[in-house]
């Protein structure tokens, strides 16, 4: 195998290229990025970068010399428009055709847009790419009244930054609580209360039906019940959809993402998929396949595929983990908690430092830690090793979690 083509240069695509070289792969590595410039890190966009604490240089994954030194051929500001699995060839938008011995789809995901008029008004922003963040930063400097559509990680992280800058912030969420798709009720309740304390207002269970403007500029968001929320900036943060169209057109199976096996291979042995765009079986999930949107997932997928392509075949088994920083609040999640039916709280919610241990029956699925990083670090080891603690043990602060993570049989 001497030519590997990677479509997408986010966390997964970049890590794959880097890991291939680290593993001693000696062939060509072509990394296709649909954004201009060098690959960069996304997590700081909604935090330090948006706040202006770090500039574009420190956002980069690696400097330009890294790609030269490691013979990673970065083709930026370009995208694939067709995959021909029979010919093992990718066609790029500018017409170039690239043959491959192995193709890795690291195409990520894109912002979902609500079905409402007014999305093209000036002042309607998104927060996924660096370019979008630059535009948002410019708009935020001038804005006084901000409406955020969607109370997920991104919406809440942005709301915390905007509120800290003294903006009036109102979040509209179609579900009945914040981060409802990913965290326990207890965690949602705590975060909503803290955001309210910081001056953020919420409307739950209510979709936005229109974004209204004047002279091409956003002025308000209209809700289904007729309420109009004034806005000179609107952030649309209702989640993302996987970029799986190319794979579908190439005849690959799509199940909320590009379907892969436990080796992250598609049905075509010459094509793999990783990161946000891949739907894969996880031994840590109650449902299969799963599609996860996180840096950890993208980077660990990349390492697994790089290992396989350099002769160290192994099933993908990494424990999923996530984090979010919302103002002074630090949320860290180990494992996949969404299918839980009961919880145990370690620490006191009132103290602002606690962990929610999430169970399905007696099985510990995952741990949501709020301003309690030790539980997270130990919990990751515990869950990765397949060890269990009972709800009673979890809730007992005198119970030694560290010892349980290292010594107990599974």
């Amino acid at each position: 195998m001497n030519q590997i083509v990677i479509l997408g240069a986010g966390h997964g695509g970049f890590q794959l290229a880097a890991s291939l070289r680290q593993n001693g792969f000696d062939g060509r590595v072509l990394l296709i990025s649909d954004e201009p410039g060098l690959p960069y890190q996304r997590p700081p966009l909604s935090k330090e970068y948006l706040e202006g604490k770090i500039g574009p240089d420190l956002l980069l994954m690696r400097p330009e010399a890294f790609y030269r030194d490691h013979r990673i051929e970065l083709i930026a500001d370009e995208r694939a428009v067709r995959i021909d699995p029979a010919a093992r060839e990718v066609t790029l938008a500018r017409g170039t055709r690239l043959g491959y011995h192995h193709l890795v789809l690291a195409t990520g995901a894109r912002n979902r847009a609500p079905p409402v008029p007014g999305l093209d008004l000036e002042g309607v922003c998104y927060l996924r790419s660096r370019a979008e963040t630059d535009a948002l930063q410019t708009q935020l400097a001038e804005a006084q009244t901000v409406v955020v559509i969607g109370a997920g990680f991104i919406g809440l992280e942005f709301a915390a930054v905007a509120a800290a800058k003294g903006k009036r912030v109102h979040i509209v969420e179609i579900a009945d609580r914040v981060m409802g798709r990913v965290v326990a009720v207890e965690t949602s309740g705590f975060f909503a209360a803290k955001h309210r304390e910081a001056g953020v207002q919420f409307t739950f269970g209510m979709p936005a039906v229109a974004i209204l403007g004047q002279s091409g500029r956003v002025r308000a968001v209209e809700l289904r019940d007729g309420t109009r929320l004034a806005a000179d900036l609107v952030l649309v943060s209702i989640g993302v959809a996987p970029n799986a169209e190319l794979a579908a057109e190439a005849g690959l199976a799509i199940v909320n993402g590009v379907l892969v096996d436990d080796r992250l291979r598609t049905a075509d042995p010459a094509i793999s998929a990783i990161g946000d765009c891949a739907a894969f079986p996880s031994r840590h999930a109650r449902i299969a396949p799963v599609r996860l949107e996180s840096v950890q997932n993208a980077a660990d997928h990349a390492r697994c595929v790089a290992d396989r392509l350099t002769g160290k075949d192994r099933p993908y088994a990494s424990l999923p983990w996530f984090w979010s920083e919302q103002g002074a609040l630090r949320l860290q999640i180990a494992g996949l908690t969404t299918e839980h039916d009961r919880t145990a709280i370690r620490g006191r919610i009132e103290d602002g430092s606690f962990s929610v241990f999430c169970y399905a029956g007696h099985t510990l699925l995952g741990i949501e830690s709020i301003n309690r990083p030790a539980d997270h670090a130990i919990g990751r080891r515990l869950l990765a090793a397949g060890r269990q603690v009972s709800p009673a043990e979890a809730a007992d602060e005198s119970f030694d979690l560290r010892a349980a993570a290292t010594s107990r049989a599974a």
Partner: protein
Amino acid sequence: MPRVTYVSQDGSETTLDIAVGTSVMQAAAYNGVDGIVAECGGSCMCATCHVYVKEDQLARTPPMQPDEDAMLEGTASERRPNSRLSCQLAMTPEMDGLVVYLPETQV
């Protein structure tokens, strides 16, 4: 500018001039030093920028905060008394000449 030397597992050394305030992790990433992963980008969330500080220089580094102490519980390589997360080592003039050893693995 104060200097930091990174010593990798194979013994090779990289010395960087680092602006005061920039972290030992940020400088490594920006200059392409292998062996520091820094998956979370410097938020003290992931423990993949683990380094071992030369023992007699520990007192010259910023004091360890509780978050860092906690996340060091989750390093992929063994935690030792001189373990630090390099994202929490913001450069000061006193740190000039610092030597950090990179662990066997970060993930």
